[in-house]
């Protein structure tokens, strides 16, 4: 086991940030911690990178205990804290050289590891880190976290606030890294990124809602999910919420994800109701649930 978390809890004053969390990450796995702000992701990361002491529980990283062997862990993991934390007034090159040096290595030594990523920011290597765009900053931070060839990589919300294109590129880089045998623990609030992980843990308010492979998790949706569409989204949402048999009504892009209370639900009934609400161009069809649907169902 690369990472092992057993009944870890951590509170700040009276707020329980992490509540009895347990999970394991296998070697070479790309594991996602999926949940919104305040779910406890950052606290958990800080415990695993030995920056915080848990109130209860035991955690190990690469078979090293986070309390007793913290020095060894600090020498051998790669860490990218949330919200870009590199030196804004140092250039790309200077940042990399610095991190390589303090880990007792050099850029040349492990260049093959960061090459794919570094070539994208290399043209800007003399630019101050603070002047890079969001996507570039993330790439630089990733390089700095990898420069010493860590066994385990901790990435805390590396794609938050970054546009979809850069996000997609970032995850492609992660997949390639995974092939080099690095264990990666990533946290993200973007549910669509969950599908790219080997396994995920859905986390909300300090508790784990579910852990499994993304494909398996979506199978656990308890009801039949429908895409409902009409011309006026706002009116549609209002009408559906007022429908006495509705179980859940969530807008999802151009459609509304709808589930019904009844087990013998007939979409035609719904259609008539919506028509009576003066809605037009009504569409009702079944659809596959996504991670986000599961999340909202579990978090209810």
């Amino acid at each position, binding site marked *: 086991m690369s990472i092992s978390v057993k009944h870890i809890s951590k509170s700040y004053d009276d707020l329980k940030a992490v509540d009895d969390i347990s999970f394991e990450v296998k070697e070479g796995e790309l594991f996602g911690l999926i*949940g*919104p*702000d*305040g*779910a406890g992701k950052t606290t958990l990361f800080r415990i695993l990178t030995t920056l915080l002491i848990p109130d209860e529980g035991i955690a190990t990283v690469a078979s090293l205990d986070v309390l007793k062997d913290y020095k060894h862990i600090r020498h051998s993991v790669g860490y990218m804290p949330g919200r870009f934390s590199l030196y804004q007034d140092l250039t790309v090159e200077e940042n990399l050289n610095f991190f390589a040096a303090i880990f007792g290595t050099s850029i040349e030594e492990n260049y093959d590891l960061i090459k794919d990523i570094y070539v994208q920011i290399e043209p800007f290597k003399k630019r101050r880190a603070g002047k890079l*765009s*969001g*996507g570039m900053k993330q790439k630089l931070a990733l390089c700095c976290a990898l420069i010493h060839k860590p066994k385990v990589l901790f990435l805390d*919300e590396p794609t*938050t*606030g*970054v*546009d*979809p*294109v*850069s996000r*997609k590129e970032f995850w492609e880089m992660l997949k390639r890294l995974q092939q080099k045998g690095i264990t990666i623990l990533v946290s993200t*609030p973007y*549910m*669509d990124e969950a599908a790219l992980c080997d396994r995920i843990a859905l986390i*909300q308010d300090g508790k784990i809602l579910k852990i499994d492979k993304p494909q398996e998790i979506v199978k656990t949706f308890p009801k039949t999910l429908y895409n409902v569409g009409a011309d006026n*989204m*706002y009116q549609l*949402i209002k009408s559906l919420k007022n429908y006495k048999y509705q179980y859940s009504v*969530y*807008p*999802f*892009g*151009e459609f509304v994800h709808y589930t019904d209370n009844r087990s013998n639900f007939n979409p035609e009934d719904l259609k008539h109701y919506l028509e009576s609400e003066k809605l037009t161009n009504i569409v009702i069809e079944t659809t596959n649930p996504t991670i*986000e649907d599961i*999340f*909202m169902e579990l*978090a*209810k």
Partner: protein
Amino acid sequence: MMHIENVIVVKDLTKMFGDFTAVNTITFKVKKGEIFGFLGANGAGKTTAMKMLIGISNPTSGEANVAGFDVFTNAEDIKKNIGYMSQKFALYDDLTVKENITFFGGIYGLSRKKIKEKTKKLIEDLGLQEVSNQLVGSLPLGWKQKISFSVSLLHEPKIVFLDEPTGGVDPITRRQFWEMIYQTANNGTTIFVTTHYMDEAEYCDRVSIMVDGKIEALDTPKNLKKQFDVESMNDVFLKLARG
């Protein structure tokens, strides 16, 4: 013929920093009551463009009229007539909910009576009775965003500018937030919103996508998907914004 009022009119708006063109002759119009999505990759010029529209940055050239005021000559009037909500800073963490509302109400020039009215309504609408005297910093992010949005509407502005309002918020709260946006738009307020959630782009009446300082697409989500022959706004974005 119904006269549809344009609350934002932009023509060839440009912003240059030295010889770097951040915003390159963008042109568009936004109707009253519209939910207008303003998208683009990081570094595409979105934020720079928005800063010009809300009157805190001087354009290099071009024309722009916001809420009936010219951005060159009446920037101060613009600020008084719009609402603004930024992801980076919304409310004071070390003031209570009530204190925040009172403070911002005061800044917008609302009378004490009005502030009292609005405070009551806001707290009722959002169900914040239990926490109205709690420090904002202690509230979950989702609540903060909702309060922040309501605060930006205190002075009943014609247009509200939302800068990535739902970043990091949980999916349920995100949707509740968008219901608030829908309601506000329904009441005639124009919504100008930027976001990185592509599903939220679908909620907009029209969407513009900026790439390297220029607007490369401007249409309804439906039409854009047809135009690029894809299923989702996410794919539209990926096809366009390979910056």
